[in-house]
Each structure stands twice: as C-alpha cells, then as structure tokens.
C-alpha cells in the first residue's frame, strides 16, 4: 500500500521567487524598485489614494488594475468616517506584508497552511497628535500582532516561519527603523 501526499500549495510560486532572487543577484540594478501612490483630498479629513504604476526590473510597471483607498477619521473625531484612518492602513499594510511572508516562507519550507489569521493593535496616546503634551509622540507607542495559524507543522516550526517573515518584511522594517522622509511642495 502506498500513501499519496498532496504537494504543499500555499498559492505562492516559490520557484519563480527563487529564480528572481538568482537573476537579481547577478543584476542588482534591476532590483531597484520605486513604489508610488497618489492622493487627492476629497473633503474634510477624507482623502482618496490611488496606486497603479510602479518602477522595477529596469522599467515602468503597473498593477493589473487601479486600486483606491479612502482614508478618513471616525465620527468621534467629528469626521464623516468615509474610510479607514491612515494609521489603520499602516496596520493593514503590516499585516498584509507579514502574512504574505508567512505564506512564502511556509511554501519554501514545504509546510501546508490551512488558515492564517492576524489581529493587530496599535496603541496610541492621542495627546501627541492633538498637541496636548509635547513629550508624547504622534505615532504608535507600540504595535502588537497576534497570529493564529493552522498548519501542518509543530508550534516551533510555525513560530520560526513567523520570525523569518518579520526578518524579511519591508513594512516591518519601515515601522521598526527610521526612514528619511522628504516632503516638497510644488
């Protein structure tokens, strides 16, 4: 009697990713990407951001379609609440990045994922943004991410995937390390 094992499939084409890594090692200039967004103020605290085009692999690229994200503030801030607050989008970006990494790392380690759920919480003392207390920063005082993962792996293997995903995550890096930001007005 023989047992059939279904191949691990987390929907990530790891072969293509590994090939890309090899190609870009030989051609580091093609690894230079530029990510873009445009944003237009709608009314009050409501703005609409659009992403479509980006640069990479030595040329202009574009998404399959245009994506738009409305940001606003909730009603308790006397706003109309037409979308997520920008800081919630930051949490969504972190979660999306870490979860994508988890899928890719698990695929590479041949571990089948069944479900991956993240809950994020960013603590913030809004005395900072309201200018009440200059000693309080504007941004998060800390972010907590909790993962619940169902996969064919031991608890330590799952923890190792989540750790590796943080190690390779762009958004995790953006949040945990300082970045120079230049804002110009034309």
């Amino acid at each position, binding site marked *: 009697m023989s047992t059939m094992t279904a191949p691990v499939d987390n929907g990530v084409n790891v072969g293509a990713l590994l090939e890309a890594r090899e190609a870009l090692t030989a051609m*580091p200039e093609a690894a230079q990407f530029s990510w873009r967004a445009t944003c237009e103020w709608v009314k009050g605290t409501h703005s609409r951001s659009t992403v479509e085009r980006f640069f990479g692999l030595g040329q202009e690229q574009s998404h399959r379609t245009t994506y738009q994200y409305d940001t606003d503030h909730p009603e308790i801030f006397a706003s109309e609440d037409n979308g997520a607050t920008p800081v919630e989008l930051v949490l969504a970006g972190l979660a999306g990045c870490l979860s994508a990494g988890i899928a890719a790392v698990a695929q590479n380690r041949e571990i089948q994922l069944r479900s991956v759920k993240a809950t994020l919480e960013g603590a913030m003392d809004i005395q900072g943004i309201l200018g009440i207390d200059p000693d309080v920063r504007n941004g998060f*005082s*800390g972010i907590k991410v909790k993962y619940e993962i169902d996969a064919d792996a031991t608890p*330590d293997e799952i*923890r*190792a995937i989540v*750790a*590796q995903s*943080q*190690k390779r995550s762009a958004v*995790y890096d953006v*949040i*945990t*390390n*300082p970045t120079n930001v230049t804002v110009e007005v034309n």
Partner: protein
Amino acid sequence: MVMRISTVILGAGHAGLAMSRCLTERSIDHVVLERGEVANTWRTERWDSLRLLTPNWQSRLPGYRYQGDDPDGYRTMPETIEFLERYADLISAPVQTRTTVTSVRPAHDGYEVVTNRGTWRCQTVVIATGACNIPNVPAIAGAVPSRIDMLTPMNYRNPAQLADGGVLVVGASASGTQIAEELQRFGRPVTLAVGEHIRVPRVYRGLDIKWWMDKTGVLDEGYEEVDSILRARNVPSLQLVGSDDRRNLDLNTLSGLGVELVGRLAGIQGDRAQFSGSLPNQCAMSDLKMNRLLDRIDEWATDNGLDGEVDPPHRFEPTRVETSPPLGVDLSRIRTILWATGYRPDYSWLDLDVLDRKGRIRHDGGVVESPGVYLLGLPFLRRRKSSLIDGAGADARDLSGHLAAYLDRAASGPLLARTA
C-alpha cells in the same frame, strides 16, 4: 632578485601553516610569507582576556593533536601564540617573517608576489591572510559626536583603557557580548545594541557545545549542502566565551548583570542614537535556532545510545526582553562606542581581477577563479568549521589536492600543446 618557487602561501596563521604541512607531505616546494611573526593577528589584534572559543582538544591540525592535560580548557592568547609557534616548528614550515606583501599580480608563467623583501615568481598562490583584517564599522559612525571615543575589538585591550562613563557596544556576537560583559563587571554601564545573533549554551547535557557540534556533524556540513552559501558565510559568530567556569554568555546573562539591551543601531540623529524595534524578533529567532540545534543534538544522542550516559535533555529560559525596549538613548550619557560589528578581509595588495562587487574574492570552495590561486581560512569556505582552527586541516587537504593536480597539469601542459 626574483626568487622562483612552486607555491607562495600568504600568512603564517593556522590556515597557512596547515597548508604548508599539506604541501610538504606532497613534496611541493613553497614558502610561507608573514608580515609579522607566526600567529601575528593573535599577537597584535586581540584583547587581553580573550580565549579561544573552542576547547583545546578541538584545535586539530594536520600532523598535530592536543596531548596536554587540559583537553577541555580554552587557550589564552599567549597559549594560542605558543601553540601555533610550536606547530610551525613541528612541521618545519618554511616561514619568512617580517615580510609584507605589497602586490600579487599575474606573470606570464603564473604569479608574481612582490614584498618588502624581494619578489617571488610562482605558479600557485594560497591566500591565508585571514577573514578579520579590517573592522567593519558602519557608515553611521561618521555621525557620532566627536567627544565620544570609538573603539573596535581590534584596538580594544581591557576595560581600564576606556574613559569613565557609559559605553554603547554595537553588536552582540562573540566579541560584542564578551566585551560588554567585561565592561559591565568593571563598572562601566553598558548599553548593548543587538541585531541578528546566534545564542548557544557553553555546556549542554554536561558536554561542551563544540563537542556536540563536532560529533553530530554540524561542523562538517559542506558548502554545497546548505541552502544558501552566501547566507551561511554571513552567519555571525556564536555567543560564546572560553572560561574556566564554562559559563553561558547569552543576553540573559548580560541583562542579569545590568547591561541594557536595545535593538540594532539604526541611526544617529544629533545627540541621539536610534535603535530598531526588532529586538523581540531577533531574540525569538535566536531562541528558536538554538532549540533546533538542541533538538538535533538530542536526536543524535538517542540514535547513538548516549541518553543514559549524559545528562537528560533540557531547554534554556527564553531570552528575556523588556516589553518596550528603549528605541533611543541620549548620547550625552555615552562616553565610548565599541563597534563589535564584524570584520572583513583586506585585499588591497591583490592585483588580480577576482573580486566581486562587494570586494569579496570569487571562489568555489576556496578554488579562486584565477587558475592556481587558492583561498583558505574564511567562514564556511568549504565546510561549517572552515572558520575554526579545527577546520583548516580538512580544507587544506582538499585544496592542496587540487593545487597538486593543477601543478601536474601545468607541468604536462606544454607537452599536450606540442602534440595538439
């Protein structure tokens, strides 16, 4: 005057000497050129309290095995120097000391090695000049206020050398953790910036971790067996110290002594050093990695019937990390910064087109692209233990075989050319 010889070995450290022994066994005429004395780096570029991280029995070299009465001890620097001097004598290595190489360049029949004491013509060159010639100080060091003293493990000697005041140690591998511990015990308050690091216990189940790593074959893993050799070659040194009490030197030891743990140094803005918020993950990764090694050891112990002979398996307390580690420190409380951020080799004298864009020599397990040139004594050159004294022997045997075959082919080359 130009001197002719088959092989010039650059560097009379453990790697160059091991190669010398292998070439002598094969009756290949060679010279070992050394800028200072035998074991020069150990004499001039190490701090006072440093001991080898490997036990005495483990520093095996071709034709040499430890026969002293303290196989489990760790050599001090004077002992290491004496050991390598004795080895050079034992194998009658043809070492020419006080000879600084200023250029290695192609010649029509091989290579020309130019030194301050004459020029050599040879068919083959073995580069055994070491992995740790230049401290890797990151560019942000340029933003450090000038009133702060800066040191590296290469010019650090002992705690008394430092001015009174706080110390920021950047880097938590072997050098950084050892120096942080010593400074904190001396009474200098230490802040330790921790990036990727490898935690291992000194002793596990009653035996030295290096004994386990040797026996289980971890150290023998070959460069073609690992997933990414580039990553394997960049793995930081283990958090270990060689000491009589065989104590652990992990972040828990250090925070227990009062060392302040912070994330990787991310930037310096005016009078403030900023640290990454990644400390919890760095510690989690390191704990997971250590436990995978211990799992592998336990499995091997069971498979080899050792379970009744050695202490039972156990796990170590996870690294304790504050809930919110500081993301910055005011540099006004820092008097000295010690950059324990690794080293890189110096190839400024190498006039061959063999360097990649990061300044590393392109090679396949020590066989350099330029025919007849070999590399020895770098991390994971051919196997995980390549960075250890104990790894030089196996690498030198492999590469001396390749080198001998190359000389044989070169000798028969003109004949083949005539018949063609």
